[in-house]
């Protein structure tokens, strides 16, 4: 019986991929396909780690994230954020204040806004960012860092 990891992503294949990865490495995957479902699963289970795709439609991932961090009983659960632009996010996260980005990249722009909102809501950040497409070794390494084996 391994540690429970909640995987939240609207892409079934991605969820499958990560579940298998986790399962193969001794973790117990719990799945959810949107924010609402995820919250449900959190309430029902004793989750040790949340792997969250932030780029879900209508930012439901982020909404969930905010909610989690607000609730006392859940805010300490580590969150691993999945996105296709982790590198940029790390960079953006490191930046202080408002940097004006030229609108070449609406995605990046929306990410920037996301980071900003995170900051505004009290300097709360996800523990880590994970890049998509997921590199199994890298992913598992990060999981191990957060919750051990």
């Amino acid at each position, binding site marked *: 019986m391994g540690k429970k990891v909640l995987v939240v992503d609207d*892409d079934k294949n991605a969820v499958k*991929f990560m579940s298998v990865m986790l399962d193969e490495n001794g973790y117990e995957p719990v799945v959810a396909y949107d924010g609402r479902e995820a*919250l449900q699963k959190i309430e029902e289970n004793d989750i040790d780690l949340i792997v969250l795709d932030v780029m*879900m*439609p*209508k930012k439901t991932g982020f909404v969930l994230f905010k909610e989690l961090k607000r609730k006392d009983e859940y805010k300490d659960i580590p969150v691993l954020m999945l996105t296709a632009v982790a590198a940029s996010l790390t960079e953006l996260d490191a930046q202080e204040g408002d940097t004006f980005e030229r609108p070449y990249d*609406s*995605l990046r722009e929306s990410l920037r806004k996301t980071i900003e909102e995170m900051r505004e809501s009290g300097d709360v950040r996800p523990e880590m960012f994970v890049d998509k497409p997921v*590199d199994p070794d890298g992913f598992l390494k990060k999981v191990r860092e957060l919750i051990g084996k």
Partner: protein
Amino acid sequence: MGKRHSIVTKLSVAVIAIVTLVIAATGLVNNIISHHYALESARAALRFNSESVLSGIDKLMMTRNKDGVLELIQDISKGSTVYRDVRLLSHYSGEIVVSRLRETGSALTEADLSCAVCHDQSGPLIPSEAPLDRVVTSPSGHRILHVITPIMNKARCKTGKCHEHADSGPILGFLEAEYSLDRTDALVSGLNASFAVAASSAILLGTIALWIILRQTLRKPIREMAAGIQAIAGTDLSFRFETNRKDELGLVEESVNDMAARIQAHQTELRDAREYLEGIVENSADIIITVNPKGLIQTVNRGAEQALGYLREELIGRPIEILFANPGERDVAIARLEHGDSVVNYETHFLTKTGALRDVLLTLSRLRDREGTPIGTIGISKDITREKELQGLVVQSQAAAAIGQAVTAIQHAIKNMLNTLSGGSYLVRVGMAKDNRERIEEGLAMIDEGIWRIGDHSLSMLKYAKEWTLTPELTDLALLVNKVCNAIEHAARDRGVTLRRKFPDHCPLVSCDSRLVHMALMDIATNALDACSAKAYKDPETAEICFDLYLDDDTSSVVVEVRDNGIGMNEETRANIFRPFFTMKEELGTGLGLALTSRIVKLHGGKIGVESELDKGSTFRLALPLEGRGMNQGARDGQEGPGRR
């Protein structure tokens, strides 16, 4: 115009003629009157004399002094130079008793004037009725006044003892006097002559005086006035008469002064206005050039010099063609001008002196004179080279932004698809390693899906890149909406979303491409579904999508409204939602769906819009014009977005 006649001469001649006439008439009248009165005087005098003589004779006769009588008569006739002859005639014997000129004793004949006076008519006249004096002309031409005074047979005579004619008739005899009128005539002539002389002198002097006076009062001042007016009419509008005359000429001078002052004021006004207008043209920063009917440049303003690098002297007289970079464009402009007399904001190109190109907006107007004959053309051009450059830069940066966006979006999509493929590959490997067939199959399925996604993604990008042509047909939109609802019914139920429909009783048919419109509506509907799925609904609110169909009279179009109460969008998203590659669904969407929908709607000449509020929901509104109004414009479309005009 004939020779000018002097007004003075005319006046003088007129006056003198009148005066002369008057004087001549006066003279004539004078002459007649003088003669008459002279005669009358002579008559009166002579008769008086004759009677005086007779009474003398009478007295003598009474004293029986016959000789005395004869002496008296002889003395009278002799002594007087005036009396030509005085005669005593006897009626009784018909003989001359005494006469200086005629023989005494000679008989009287009936032809004698003495007899003729009374015996003119048949039978004798009573003496008181006869004119007893006459004027006769002697054979030598002298005028003679002839007076006959009858000696009446009084009672005393009858009884006298000296005569033997006691019973003679009533008249005893006559006293006949002849009075020469030479002197009176001479006097009168003399009078006339004097009068004539005096009159002539007066006329002559008067003429001279009049001529001089008129000259002074009329000719000189009138000539001076004429000279003054000439000066004003010529060049000197500042000339004024120094008038101190009080007469009519003074009035004229004053009037001329007023007129000159007014003309001068007008001239100044005109000059000021002209200078002002010329100043406007000259100082305008635009290129203002006029051209004569032959097409040669007439005037050039400073704006033109500066923009084109020419001095105006270098341009004036040369054909306007030299300024146009493209002779074809010039021909188009001229053709339009011929057609409508004006060309407004025609975009064309000028060449500067150094051959550089300048983008301009050209406005041409024909200049015509009062009769409507063309006298040239005026061209006002705005140099928009800089503006076009900036526009180009903006367009470029927009293009770059769009490309960057597209590239990023595609990159993300590819990343997602890669994720699927690597997931599948991982599963296969794990399955192979653990000899777990199920894993292998799951993996392969994932790989297949990844492959499919790539294909699908490519396809949708191709779809977007395609140039669409509509095949319109009359469509009942209600049916189309129903089709869409049916298609998503299953998924809606799965996700707990209720679908509602509101259609009018009869909705007019719309001419549109039903396949494309269906595609567009499906896209909107699926978006609505996803929006509902993404929201965490709190009791008692449940997920709901409403499809509303109605006729908009204002725009004469049919509107399809899709209203959801899902997660909504923020303002930034809402503003950009129809942009290509703008997506909120990183893995699944290409971001092209709504962009394509928007294009389809525009192709039909319709409009699409969206309202949204975060966490409350979104409303998409699609308006299609009735009877395909406006469709012709967009029936064949090209790519939207920057990079194309």
